[in-house]
């Protein structure tokens, strides 16, 4: 099994095909989208491939150490051009092909007009523990 992170971006990903902000959908379209996401997660729990899923607030802060005895420096939020993560799902699957298949399904979630969003999701493999048998 291999773990993958599916990243959804508020911005920083290439534009989706059906790129309409959610507050411009109808309430029914929003409900259909939410239902699709819930069903997707529930199905992966059923197949034993779901690990975790979380959503993040859009506004964040950059923080760094500023030297002994000084409070940390904070910066941001930054201008529109920066990459911004909206949330993630962690899956544990048998192969890269399966991970791509699932990311594709998630990207097909319905949006405006009830049509798939075709949203770009970022798929990142976890770095794993070294195998016990190496030769």
């Amino acid at each position, binding site marked *: 099994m291999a773990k993958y992170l599916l990243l959804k971006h508020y911005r920083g990903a290439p534009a989706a095909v059906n790129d309409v*902000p*959610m*507050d*411009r*959908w*109808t*309430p029914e*379209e*929003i*409900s259909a989208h*939410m*239902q699709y996401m*819930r069903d997707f997660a529930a199905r992966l729990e059923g197949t034993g491939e779901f690990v975790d899923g979380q*959503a993040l*607030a*859009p*506004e964040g802060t950059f923080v760094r150490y500023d030297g002994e005895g000084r409070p940390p420096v904070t910066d941001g939020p930054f201008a529109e051009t920066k990459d911004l993560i909206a949330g993630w799902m962690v899956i544990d699957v048998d192969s890269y092909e399966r991970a791509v298949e699932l990311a594709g399904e998630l990207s097909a979630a319905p949006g405006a007009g009830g049509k798939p969003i075709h949203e770009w999701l970022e798929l990142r493999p976890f770095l794993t523990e070294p195998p016990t048998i190496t030769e």
Partner: protein
Amino acid sequence: MNEALLRSLTPSVLGILVRRGADFAAAEDAVQDALVEAVRAWPADPPQDPKGWLITVAWRRFLDATRADAARRRREDLVDEEPAPGPVLEVDDTLQLYFLCAHPSLTPSSAVALTLRAVGGLTTRQIAQAYLVPEATMAQRISRAKRTVSGVRFDQPGDVATVLRVLYLVFNEGYSGDVDLAAEAIRLTRQLAAAIDHPEVAGLLALMLLHHARRASRTASDGSLVPLAQQDRGRWDTVSIAEGVEILQAALARDRLGEFQAQAAIAALHADAPVAEETDWVQIVEWYDELARLTDSPVVRLNRAVAVGEADGPRAGLAALAALDASLPRHTAVAAYLHERDGDLPTAARLYAEAARKAANLAERDHLTRQAARLNTRLSR
């Protein structure tokens, strides 16, 4: 087996062990072991005297652990013979445990975890699941909390207000995992109300019962939030409401008003309205004034602005809102609502979308996005 009933014995059993001379941390571990053992053994072989059984098993576990500990440190003389049972002052013990677990030296999250385990009798795993953290993290949090209070004398009087804050936090967390934290908070507050006669304890219990009564109607079948005005009031739990109102009235009659009684009074006024339109908003505004006087909280003034908007119209609500700091959580959402009531749909739609971006939880974000979508759909027709 009724697990809540079993767990309700936790504080008195723990209190007895501490009175017998066990230190709090070791006694708490021993009681936890005994509870786990009871869950395993009782269904097949229920004891005649559940409490006596728990005391015996917990005390044996305590002695075993102390002996093992002593052996490890090669100090066998630590362990005495079983001392005579000390005086049993159950109600006092329960109250002392609440004080200890909500001790001001603890952080809120530690106090919550320790209360749920030592007073509530929940397992570390259950608490970890409820708060969505790994079990090892929760175990560390609890053992650090126990170390923090290890020097506190068990018979030291405590502060009821800190206990109430902890219980309020537990209730407000709602529930996830297999433990219903809201129901657990109600159980623990009931138990506290039995141990101490205090109008604010009664006020908090009433507040919890009145809000819990609305739970079934608060979310739609698809998980989305249903605002108070649109809730199906036929699904409100009238038994809980009646109990909450009765407890509140008895507390208010004692004329020692506090913030929980005032909050409960507002909840009771909502519960009293058969339909949303019949809500007595004028009285609700008066209670918010009391509450603002008691707490000076900006959140209270924000909620007051909503009530003013209902009592005196949206313009008055917006005027009340204008006096408040716009960076307050939910300020934008309230502004959106009042602008919609005032008929300014484009502004309301824009503010709902902005409020959704600032929402602190998913259910609220979805709700606010839907509100924006609803207005935008109407405007584009």
